[in-house]
């Protein structure tokens, strides 16, 4: 499903002294089955942006198109619900949304609400738990007995259970250690490869975006300030630094090597070993001088 933003603005707490413009004339496009990252520091409007995709917020002006459906300021709730059934959203600290007596019941909460075939999904739950890195023996346990990391995985599985066509990730790795971040990110990458949902990931860490996204939007002060493929974004180092965003260390190292040796890497997602191999080949072929 494609998602399109046309001249979308959003005002919080209209007509009070606390009125703030959270989105300013946004135009953006998220292609079907693609992975897009939305980057920006806290308060730049990232979360506000993605909450328009499942109608949690309605635009104050402009149109959001999801699949064939138009979401506008006056859109009726029934229509919003239809759109919402196609969208899965993983919030920051998703484990806070667990509430059922057993893990199984909590996983079925979304499918039940969205009117899906619950019996069918129930059969697939063991597989789903495995996909998020948990044992199927947890199904009968209370979600509140689990460890923090397990709770987060259960909450994520609860969103994936509806197999959404659009998957929105709002800083799903917040508060995890680097190892945990990597694991959760890999989980989403595998899921994306297997089911091909249109994926939109919010983050303020360039590393995460770099590992995952094909396209990037950089937000600042309620506006989209930069957009393009990750490579093109990394090239504008100074502009990024103005927005307190750091180029991932790995990319920085590769860029430095490019500047020093004159080599051109095909892309910056190369692992250190791959980069070394590529460089060695280039030297052997005589493309770049030995340094």
């Amino acid at each position: 499903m494609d998602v399109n933003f046309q001249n979308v603005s959003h005002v919080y707490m209209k007509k009070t002294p606390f009125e703030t413009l959270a989105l300013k004339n946004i135009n953006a496009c998220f292609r079907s089955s693609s992975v897009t990252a939305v980057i920006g520091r806290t308060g730049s409007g990232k979360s506000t942006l993605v909450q328009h995709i499942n109608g949690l917020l309605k635009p104050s002006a402009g149109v959001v198109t999801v699949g064939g459906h138009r979401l506008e300021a006056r859109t009726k709730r029934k229509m919003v619900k239809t759109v919402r059934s196609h969208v899965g959203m993983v919030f920051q600290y998703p484990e806070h949304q667990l509430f059922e007596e057993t893990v199984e019941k909590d996983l079925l909460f979304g499918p039940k609400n969205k009117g899906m075939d619950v019996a069918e999904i129930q059969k697939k739950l063991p597989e789903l738990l495995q996909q998020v890195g948990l044992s199927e023996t947890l199904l009968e346990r209370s979600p509140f007995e689990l460890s923090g990391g397990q709770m987060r995985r259960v909450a994520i599985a609860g969103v994936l259970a509806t197999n959404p066509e659009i998957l929105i990730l709002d800083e799903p790795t917040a508060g995890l250690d680097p190892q945990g971040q990597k694991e959760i990110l890999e989980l989403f990458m595998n899921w994306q490869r297997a089911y091909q949902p249109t994926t939109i990931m919010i983050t303020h860490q360039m590393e995460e975006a770099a590992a995952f996204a094909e396209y990037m939007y950089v937000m600042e002060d309620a506006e989209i300030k930069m957009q393009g493929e990750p490579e093109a974004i990394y090239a504008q180092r100074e502009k990024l630094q103005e927005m307190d965003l750091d180029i991932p260390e790995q990319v920085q190292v590769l860029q430095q090597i490019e500047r020093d040796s004159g080599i051109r890497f095909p892309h910056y997602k190369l692992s250190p070993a791959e980069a070394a191999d590529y460089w060695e080949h280039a030297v052997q072929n005589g493309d770049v001088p030995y340094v």
Partner: protein
Amino acid sequence: MFENVIIGQYLPGRSFLHHMDPRAKIAAVLFLIIVIFLVNSWNGYALFGAAAIAVYFLSGVPFRYIRKGMFPVFILVILTFFLHAFFTREGDILFSVGVFSFYEEGIRQGLFISLRLLLLVYFTSLLTLTTSPIDLTDALEQMFSPLERFKFPAYDVAMMMSIAIRFIPTLLQETEKIIKAQTARGADFNKGSMRDRMQAFVSLLVPLFVRAFRRAEDLAYAMEARGYNGGEGRTKLRLLVWGWRDTLCCVLIAAFGVVLLFLRQ
């Protein structure tokens, strides 16, 4: 989502009322609440109305804001008016609609009570709108401290109040976040069968309580870790300062009360 609740909300500003000592403001509001029940003449209410308008200009709070905040109270006011209009049967009959007759005294009582309610809510809302919660609890603590002689734990009560007030916005935020998360999972809080809505409500309340208890525990540990052991001997970072505005206000309010006494019938 909670944009329309203004009771208990603070609106930062630099008006005359904002600069007053919270103790003076609390005393004034308490005094006004008492005297409003003594007023029983149209002249008295006219004077009270004039005072309300004067205070409005001193507060610097936008009118829109007050109107929006008073709206829920209006429903209560209209209800009480009709209760009195229907059930008081004194004085002359003014007019009849079907089996119902409206008496002069009933209408009068209804109007008086409605005005009282409105003014009451108006003045207390202005108090919280122009006084930060911290100032409010500091003032209450000081005003209650004489009672400590009778074993009244003024400090602890004030601490409890400030913690409670401090966490209202946090809890509201949390509520909104969980509502959003469950809505994204297809829960519907406004529509659907009773059963579905109950289920949606449970999906909000359980996480909210779990988080609240967790938070309370964390806070207790954090306070203990920093050596908190009650109010004895603690000094304050922020001192309340009594200024000319406050004395002036108290004098004016007292005079106001005396004039109102003369206007009684």
